[in-house]
């Protein structure tokens, strides 16, 4: 786990959350190259940050005026754990975010939001309002610290109204990738075929030190669980442990 240098020896911390969601338009196959990335933040201004899912070098631009209201609580444990969180969005956002009306109601009704992968980072600001950089454990200069990686499992649209006030808000419920992986193996029988049936993948740390699912790893197709591969050959093998070599 990387040490967060900004929070050492200070009693004043300025933070903002940064979120990236990959979605596809409704009626579009998820396998086509139509994935649209929504990058939003709670920051006061648009930020172009040095974060990337694979290399840690590509910059993403996060929209500040995006209707992002709140990011729910998420836990950070010593070991990988399954936790959920939620993201609240303004239902009627004022701006069109990248590639069209990707905001508010339009986001959840026009795009396949369920199942969309989502990453949450946290950034720290200095007294001048500039995003601070830090050096991670691998010696890379970074600006954001990853806090959550998962998928959107559901969303709710809430309308609060009285005669004078009307509010729409959207809550995206998100499960961590560990929950998704756990669900894939629940009830799975212990044999080779069942282990091959599920495309599970595995978790690995990318060049930026972030945990990713192997499906995102370029050139790696070994997404099948290999745990049972040697069981059948071993089952019929005879070992004479007393035999002289």
């Amino acid at each position, binding site marked *: 786990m990387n040490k967060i240098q900004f929070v050492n020896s200070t009693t004043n*911390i*300025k933070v903002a959350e940064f979120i990236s969601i990959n979605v596809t338009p409704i009626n579009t196959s998820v396998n086509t190259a139509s994935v649209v990335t929504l990058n939003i933040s709670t*920051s006061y201004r648009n930020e172009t940050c040095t974060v990337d899912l694979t290399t840690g070098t590509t910059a993403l631009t996060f929209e500040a005026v995006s209707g992002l209201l709140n990011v729910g609580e998420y836990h950070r444990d010593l070991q990988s754990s399954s936790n959920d969180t939620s993201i609240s969005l303004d239902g009627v956002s004022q701006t069109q975010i990248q590639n069209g009306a990707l905001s508010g109601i339009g986001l959840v009704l026009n795009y396949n939001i369920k199942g969309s992968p989502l990453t949450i980072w946290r950034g720290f600001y200095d007294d001048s309002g500039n995003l601070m950089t830090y050096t991670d454990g691998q010696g890379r200069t970074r600006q954001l610290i990853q806090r959550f990686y998962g998928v959107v499992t559901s969303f709710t649209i809430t309308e609060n109204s009285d005669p004078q006030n009307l509010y729409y808000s959207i809550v995206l419920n998100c499960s961590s990738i560990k929950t998704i992986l756990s669900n894939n193996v629940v009830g799975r029988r212990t044999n080779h075929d069942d282990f091959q049936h599920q495309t599970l993948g595995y978790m690995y740390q990318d060049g930026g030190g972030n945990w990713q699912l192997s499906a995102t790893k370029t050139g790696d197709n070994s997404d099948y669980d290999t745990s049972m591969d040697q069981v059948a050959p071993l089952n019929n093998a005879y070992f004479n442990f007393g035999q002289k070599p």
Partner: protein
Amino acid sequence: MTITTTCLQTIVNHAETINLNRRRVIGIQYTKSQIANVTETITRLPWQIKVKNSAYYDYADPATRALVEQLDYLDRRYVETISFSNNANLSYFFKYQGDLTPSQQSQLTVNSFTGNTLVLNVNSANISAGRYVVKQGDFVQIVGFPYPFTALGDVVYVSGSTVTITTHRPNFIDPINGYANQHVNWGNAVEFQVFCNNMPTYTFVKAGNTAAITFDSEFQLYEYTGNLVTNINEVVG
């Protein structure tokens, strides 16, 4: 149909009291040893101005009818750009304290604005060394971008082609909007782009053959810091 309003400006011009709220979004936790730990959510720090308007307006006056009609039109949905330089009775408010003459002020243009560091080109302003460009608390605002900033400290011109002002909040205007080389409004000439998030109702009080109108609460003006509003009265949100 959209209309251009001046009603919030009228309310400001008739202000009896003005309350400024510049507080940041901050959370404070105290340890058992009473050490305070502070967390701040960095925001655009919008200006929040409460204007109390105790004056009675004569309903028979066509200007009053226009005023209430504009307020009703504006409601809580549209913005209006106001200034505190339109009324001689408010000329002290946000008054410029530096040494630059109006002519010199008009010469300075924006060089860069990153974080809370505003760098201005002196151009041909011919400022004498030792003169105050701004004093602590002075207002500056880039022309065309109605977001006022205040100077965190005195700035004395020494020499060179630029001067640097540290502002009370960081710049959130996207450079793509082209504020470079724009001129600057100073002191109470700065403009606030606000909407009234509580738009008070009003009461008619009979007064002979007419009625006096009084507003039922103060006006809470909230700076609109969303995407740049290019047309006055563009919808908020």
